[in-house]
């Protein structure tokens, strides 16, 4: 039954990856922007959460309530002043600019703080788990993170399909020009989408900090996992992103069952295979 436990852990890990991937999927789906600093912003959020937890003596879950709205504002500003400017130059410039930002953030964290790994003190939550049977247990942290991922996906779907602003976001994503001539302020809408994406990044960062330890260089691997989850699940569908995260989590955990150091590589191989077979991922976007 070790495999059954591995499957469960893989699925739960998928929740963390899905949380990372949501923001990336949103920004790519709406603006065709791949934020290569995505993982680094998550790490930044984790450090910020750490500062809040230790400075204000609040429990870890409360820190998320502070960090997420803060990052939403940061996201809006980054989108309107940096990413929009890069988009105006050329679509590929955005990749280069966010790549540069990634390096700057990593080294700024390294300079300001130390290279030592940290983790978010989750108190009693960290070791608490639900013992299902002899070999299977579900950690409270993993369960909470998975649940958060599902809530975030549902929330984003509701926003996109049930609100007026969500409608504007989808319209701007379909046809930027047509949207502007019907009265949509596309730049502002992009800012809103980025704000939401960054809020989810903040949540992902806090989740990551609870899950494992982090250091200034922990960003890029998270970005890669996020992108892999998005591609495996199919661009353009948030439920697909959740599925992609789960498949990636499964690949990594099952790979690690086979051989302890094979986990991450297994994930890369699944990603490359999906890319070779179906660049649009497993759940194709709705025909537009």
């Amino acid at each position, binding site marked *: 039954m070790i495999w059954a436990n591995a499957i469960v852990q893989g699925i739960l890990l998928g929740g963390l990856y899905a949380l990372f991937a949501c923001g990336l999927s949103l920004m*790519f789906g709406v603006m*065709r922007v*791949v934020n*290569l600093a995505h993982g680094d912003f998550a790490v930044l959020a984790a450090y910020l959460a750490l500062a809040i937890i230790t400075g204000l003596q609040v429990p870890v879950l409360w820190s998320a309530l502070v960090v997420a709205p803060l990052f939403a504002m940061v996201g809006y500003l980054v989108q309107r002043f*940096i990413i929009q*400017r*890069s988009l105006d*130059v*050329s*679509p*590929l*410039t955005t*990749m*280069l*600019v966010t*790549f*540069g*930002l990634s*390096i*700057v953030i*990593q*080294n*700024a964290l*390294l*300079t300001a703080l130390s290279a030592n790994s940290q983790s978010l003190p989750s108190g009693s939550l960290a070791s608490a788990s639900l013992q299902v049977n002899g070999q299977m247990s579900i950690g409270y942290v993993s369960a909470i993170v998975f649940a958060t991922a599902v809530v975030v996906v549902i929330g984003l779907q509701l926003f996109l399909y049930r609100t007026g602003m969500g409608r504007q976001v989808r319209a701007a994503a379909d046809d930027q020009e047509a949207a502007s001539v019907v009265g949509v302020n596309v730049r502002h809408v992009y800012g809103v989408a980025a704000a939401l994406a960054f809020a989810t990044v903040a949540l992902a960062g806090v989740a990551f900090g609870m899950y494992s330890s982090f250091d200034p260089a922990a960003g*890029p691997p998270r970005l*890669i996992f996020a*992108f*892999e989850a998005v*591609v495996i699940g199919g661009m353009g569908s948030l439920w697909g992103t959740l599925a992609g995260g789960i498949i990636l989590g499964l690949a990594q955990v099952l790979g690690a069952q086979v051989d302890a*150091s094979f986990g*991450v*590589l297994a994930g*890369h*191989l699944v*990603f*490359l295979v999906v*890319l*070779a077979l179906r*660049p649009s991922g497993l759940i194709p976007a709705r025909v537009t």
Partner: protein
Amino acid sequence: MTDTAVPAALPRVTRSRRSATWTAGLGVIVVLLLISLPYLVHTNITGLLVNIFILLALATMWNLLAGYAGLISVGQQAYIGVGAYVVLVLAGNGVSPFLAIPLAALGALLVALPTSFLVLRLRNEYFAIATWVVAEAFRLVVLRFPSLGGGTGASLPGMAGMDPVFRQALTYWAALAVVVATLLAAYLLLRSRLGLDLTAIRDNEIGARSVGVRITQAKRIVYLVAAAGAGAAGSLLIISQLNVQATSIFSVQWSAYMIFVALIGGVGSIEGPIIGTVIFFLLQQWLSDRGAWYLIIVGSIAVVMAMWLPRGVWGVVSDRFDLRLFPVGYWLHAPRPNPVETPS
């Protein structure tokens, strides 16, 4: 009586102007000077130049990919690593590491060939991340082989008996040869028909396809050449460092350096990476004792340049002074009108 109108002359098309001959001459002089450096200066300086040459070779190749083929790769470090490990393996089997340099380039090219069939089908963002994941996959695969050093790294055999000064001089000349070869390769490739095809692809892919340009083939050639260049750079790295460690040689940091150099110097010209590398190293010297500040500052400069001066420093210079040092374009000379002759 009839008018015999002599048709007006067609415009003359040449590949270069006089400034190019100056550049060629200057280039030869510079190269001769560089060759003689080990006899003139301390090994500290030649050692620094080795690093500059390696980075220039890498940046030139990256610029070829991004500025001309439109392929933004964040994964060239895959081939840097392949090059280094080819040298390691060959040196372990008795081949002189210096002779292994061209073999390292070839090895990287051979690995790039099947990889190209996977990644060249992908657009922009997918391509970039896929190249990065490929590099990560290579890293993880290499880490699984203890014979290649595993996590701690391996030292390069076959150099033990050599006099250190001589070895450093040889390393220097090898690096000089590689960077000159890389620049020449880029220049010749861009001056050729392929170069024209690439410019067409860069400007308008659909238009290029409609006039018969074989797009995938053009991109594949550039991808393979860039991989070979990165492989050669990797071989220089292991030779100059005398050891190799998987996580550092396959690190995305190399892509960061290439990208920053290209953004600062200017993407889309051969001169750009040269200027960018010089600026990069000047900054490094100036900020050498500030640790991570160096990357923060260089990264910030690169980001600012990408947004406000997308053609880089060279772009500004060449526009201001109307200068092209490497003649890869075409010059159109307007004809002088012929007088029409009419018989009296």
